[in-house]
């Protein structure tokens, strides 16, 4: 991570000195409590990659139980704490496994990797700013992740590792609000709620920062409709986060107080939970579901839109083509955001919601498939007639499109309430959201990691290893999750520690075993990514500013960019996707390159 790179012709840069002598700052200020958006972005990236491994390990635990119920666990079974339960996954532990898998993946991997890692790294670079609007706030937003990780960690161990938060990541009261409902997860669930609050604070700080930066700190000439799709994705994500997340934070406080202070927002009176005294209350459990999904449905788009943006960038770069329908892409993204706020009820079709609301939500949910469809068509249009380069980022980006189609189409089944009555809370749902969140988002993220790695570290990642990682992950992913659709149609409910209790599900065991093997394959493939990442960070071949011949502003800065990013303030003359433009001889035309308005294409002299 050397800041002094081989190509810094603009060494006279005033930017360097505008930031108060960054030469003197020590290791701690530079790499740990750094206010530099790039360092913070990389911190987020590495943290989330480690958390990805944690979340993946938890998922493998879940898969183990489904494939080999009540059998001795391969590695964890040897541990002392599991000995007293025979080295197997107990139902309490299983409940905690899937709760924490979802929690870690959503709150500590996908949201921070998109908004935290790539948002931080890319926003100032792609809009031509020298840093975020509020660098200190930015640093705080990273360091507020750690109390969250810490609290999640405590919630793991406080129940003695074999039990923990056990109300699912959705944490529906009354299960999560009354301690006697899940005795094993008493303080664990409380810490879990605290952690979610910290994540909320962290994301809120981040999103205010991103919005301010994108609105107010764009380089000269960078109009809104010249912003790369990544920035649009981040911008809309930040808006969603800023206006939906506080609702969850508030609801989190309410359920936290319900647990600890005797309030009763979500607890009706007169419940006899686990033979304890009848509850005192008057609240309504459905209120939580409304408030929760008011955030958590937009959160699905928070977990998707930035990836959509990054994939658009990658596809254009490696198809050497302008984005097909830039404005429709922006509008459809905005439509997703707008509609995203009014579809939350589709998570509650079976929950005893007023049927009139159910019908309204069904229509709005169906409609949200529309902008997604428009985006998919536009991506295919982007590839149409392109000159494709099948690099690792490109393969991951194509996989994003391919997987997103499946995730989008299976969503239509859920949007249809009558069909949802059958498939709700079955593995069909599990398949659906893994296709969206893993198949789409994570492939997008893998692509983005390979794509922007040269900018982050000034070195290239190994393409062959990247492709092997991609192929293994792709095969493992589809082996695991496509088959889940079939389990869902067969009626296998999710979150069951032992589905084979039910005679009508017994014959699904071999299928589940196949899925577990696929999941193992996928899990181990991730070590390739980690290895490639950390090896290339230090020993990968060095690269110049613009190894992909891409157009974005970030490729105008040195690799890796110094503190302050650009040697001089970039001036933007055009949109980010002018590949194969007839105006120039190269097949790309950076946003900063000035071409005098002449009818004949002129050779550029940048």
């Amino acid at each position, binding site marked *: 991570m050397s800041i002094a790179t081989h190509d810094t012709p603009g060494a006279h840069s005033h930017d360097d000195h505008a930031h108060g002598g960054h030469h003197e700052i020590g290791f701690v200020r530079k790499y740990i409590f750094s206010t530099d958006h790039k360092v913070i972005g990389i911190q987020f990236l590495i943290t989330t990659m480690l958390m990805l491994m944690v979340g993946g390990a938890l998922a493998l635990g879940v898969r183990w139980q489904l494939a080999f119920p009540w059998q001795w666990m391969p590695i964890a079974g040897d541990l002392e704490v599991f000995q007293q339960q025979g080295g197997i996954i107990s139902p309490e532990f299983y409940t905690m496994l899937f709760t924490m898998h979802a929690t870690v993946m959503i709150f500590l991997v996908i949201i921070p990797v998109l908004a935290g890692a790539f948002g931080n790294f890319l926003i100032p670079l792609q809009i031509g700013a020298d840093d975020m609007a509020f660098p200190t706030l930015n640093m705080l937003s990273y360091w507020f992740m750690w109390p969250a990780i810490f609290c999640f960690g405590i919630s793991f161990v406080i129940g003695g590792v074999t039990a923990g938060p056990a109300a699912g990541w959705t944490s529906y009261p009354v299960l999560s609000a009354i301690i006697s409902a899940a005795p094993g997860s008493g303080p664990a669930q409380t810490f879990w709620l605290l952690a979610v609050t910290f994540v909320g604070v962290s994301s809120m700080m981040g999103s205010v920062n991103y919005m301010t930066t994108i609105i107010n700190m764009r380089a000269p000439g960078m109009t809104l409709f010249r912003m790369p799709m990544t920035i649009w994705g981040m911008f809309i994500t930040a808006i969603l986060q800023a*206006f939906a997340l506080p609702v969850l934070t508030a609801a989190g406080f309410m359920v936290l107080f319900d647990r600890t202070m005797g309030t009763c927002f979500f607890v*009706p*009176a*007169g419940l006899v939970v686990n033979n304890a005294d009848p509850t005192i209350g008057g609240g309504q459990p*459905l*209120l939580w579901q409304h408030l929760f999904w008011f955030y958590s449905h937009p959160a699905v788009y928070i977990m998707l839109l930035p990836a959509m943006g990054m994939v658009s960038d990658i596809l254009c770069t490696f198809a050497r083509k302008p984005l097909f329908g830039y404005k429709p892409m922006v509008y459809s993204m905005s439509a997703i955001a707008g509609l995203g*706020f009014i579809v939350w*009820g589709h998570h509650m079709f079976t929950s*005893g919601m007023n049927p*009139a609301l159910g019908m309204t939500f069904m229509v709005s949910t169906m409609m949200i498939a529309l902008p997604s469809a428009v985006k998919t068509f536009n991506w295919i249009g982007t590839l149409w007639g392109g000159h494709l380069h099948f690099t690792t980022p490109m393969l991951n980006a194509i996989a994003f499109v391919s997987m997103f189609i499946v995730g989008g189409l299976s969503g239509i089944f859920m949007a249809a309430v009558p069909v949802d009555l059958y498939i709700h809370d079955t593995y069909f749902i599990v398949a659906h959201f893994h296709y969206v969140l893993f198949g789409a988002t994570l492939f997008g993220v893998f692509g983005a990691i390979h794509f922007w790695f040269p900018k982050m570290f000034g070195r290239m990642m190994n393409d062959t290893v990247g492709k092997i990682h991609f192929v293994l992950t792709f095969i493992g992913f589809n082996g695991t999750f496509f088959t889940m659709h079939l389990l869902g149609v067969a009626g296998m409910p999710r979150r069951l520690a032992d589905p084979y209790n039910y005679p009508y599900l017994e014959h699904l065991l071999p299928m589940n075993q196949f899925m577990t093997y696929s999941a193992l394959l996928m899990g181990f493939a991730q070590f390739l990514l980690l290895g490639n990442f950390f090896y290339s960070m230090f020993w990968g071949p060095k690269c110049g500013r613009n190894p992909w011949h891409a157009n974005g502003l970030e490729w105008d800065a040195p690799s890796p960019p110094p503190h302050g990013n650009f040697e001089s303030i970039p001036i933007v003359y055009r949109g980010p996707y002018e590949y194969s433009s007839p105006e120039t001889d190269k097949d790309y035309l950076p946003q900063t390159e000035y071409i005098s308005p002449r009818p004949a294409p002129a050779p550029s002299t940048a």
Partner: protein
Amino acid sequence: MTEEHHDHPHVNYWRIFGYLCIFTVASVIADVMDIRRLYNLTALAAVVLLIACFKASYVMRYFMHLKFEGGWKYIILLPTTVLALAIPFALASDIGIHYYDVDVPQQNTLLEKEMQAADESADHDQHDHDHDAAEDGGGH
């Protein structure tokens, strides 16, 4: 004001202060007048919330200088206001109004319905079967 803070012209803040105080007194008077008893709670709520909206608009326009800001204020505040209003409205149809019967110690709509039905049928026929049952149910 001698400086050319063209976007922050001088406002007579004391006058705004006076308005706010008058509005506060007005909402207290609305409470003392007992609109609740005279009309109903909804009328009272409408009156005092309207007053609150006026107060809020004065604070936002003059104290927060929104009156003198550019168009961005609408971009930030309108969607927020819409969302903020949408939540209670959407939730009112599910949490505020119960589509299904409620059975909690404070309120048992199912039981109330049954007792009502029993009363009605008892008016028609004293020896109705429902009547006995309702008495059994109501005796608790």
